[in-house]
């Protein structure tokens, strides 16, 4: 069973989101890092990039695979974790400590519409 902290929100594309004040941190879930295997490359957007809901904001690559990263919400990128770009393997060690981008959501109320930990766990079990 993969780990899904209850204080986070989740998407069907296996991203997690965490609301802190007016800003939302985004990363990939434990299920995602485990499915990908050894993560070796991360490509993230520039600060100031405007993202639509479900638009691709970056790419994560394992040794043998390439996957797009999708934004759970519409918003503007306010911060990018450039340390993580230098050591993407940290995602395999702890998927939830390693946020990728922070966004200022266009509508913060949309956050509540994302999946809860319980819903996401059920979703993973069903797929």
């Amino acid at each position: 069973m993969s780990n899904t902290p209850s204080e986070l929100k989740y998407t069907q594309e296996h991203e997690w989101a965490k609301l802190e004040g007016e800003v939302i941190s985004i990363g990939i879930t434990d299920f995602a890092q485990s499915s990908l295997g050894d993560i070796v490359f991360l490509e993230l957007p520039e600060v100031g990039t405007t993202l639509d809901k479900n638009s691709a904001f970056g790419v994560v690559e394992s040794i043998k695979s390439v996957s797009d990263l999708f934004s759970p919400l519409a918003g503007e990128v306010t911060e990018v974790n450039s340390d993580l770009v230098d050591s993407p393997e940290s995602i395999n060690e702890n998927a939830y400590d390693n946020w990728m981008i922070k966004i200022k959501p266009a509508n913060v109320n949309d956050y509540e519409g994302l999946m809860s930990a319980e819903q996401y766990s059920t979703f993973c079990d069903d797929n």
Partner: protein
Amino acid sequence: MNELKTTILTNDHLELKAKMAPFAGYNMPIQYSSVKEETLAVRNNVGVFDVSHMGEFFVEGEQTIDFIDHLIPNDYKNLSIGKAIYSPLLREDATIIDDLITYKLSENKAMICVNAANIEKDWNWISAQASNFNIKLTNHSDEISLLAVQGPKAEQSLNSLGLEVSDVPTFGVKSFENGIILARTGYTGEDGFEVFCPNEKVKELWSNLLSNGVIPCGLAARDVLRLEVCYPLYGHELNDELTPFDTGLKWTTKMNKQDFIGKKTLETYNPKFKLIKLALDKGIPREGYDVLNSNGDIIGKVTSGTMSVTLNKGIALALIDSQKVPNDENYLIKIRKNNYPAIYLKKPFVVGGNKK
């Protein structure tokens, strides 16, 4: 949808919680622990791959040598008994049907090991060529399992299981009384052995290897390992439309042989492509990515690409249009929206082959 075929060891892989995926019609283990750990196990210690999906044909009869020497472009006639040889299998127009290893078991008996995806295609072709020769061709693919035991400690691992292999030279073949045939060959660039094992004995061999500390390795690590040492893979660097001259296999075509299928075409053939090796300091090349010259013109495509575990950088094999090979050896690979400079290499990315 067709049911996936299994190997004798499929349940053992599932018990080890291997990630499984379809490969050439078989449900095969892609990785057990991690691609990185498995790759390094083979480079530094010893790993074992279940490659039982591969096919085995036997050729027997007094014209075995003449037949195989006609069938493949490499030199089978002068190969010593007890040795194996790599070769492509060609049509008359020199296009590549498959690549295979032929084992000279005796004057009148040979084993041919072929890619799983091509078993039927190869069988049809080879049987059709056999009619003028006094030989018997049989397909034992469903009765033989194949384990590749690879890495610097492969020799001591097999010795400790009572399969004495210290006397087997590189590309040497040895037959055992219990029906096992093994050869000092492999697809990783490391020292190692491919062990052809009767189906009923393979479970015991697999579990004995694992009990002795040999690491189970999946097809993902196998692909990284072969790409690091620049071995071609059918369906990627080799296919039905390319000839050996297009794709780095000129060395396997012995043009001074009296005859082989495809020789006539190759005598006047102008290569359409050149297979090259490219390494990247930044970015990971993948199959299908465009290769560009320094002006930004598309001149070829990546046929295989990965992150090299051993070197920790992106590596690729690419087919370049032979008319567009740049003299300055400056190449770019397009990854998504950006062009990344690639370093052109003449030698393989990694040189393995150490013994411990």
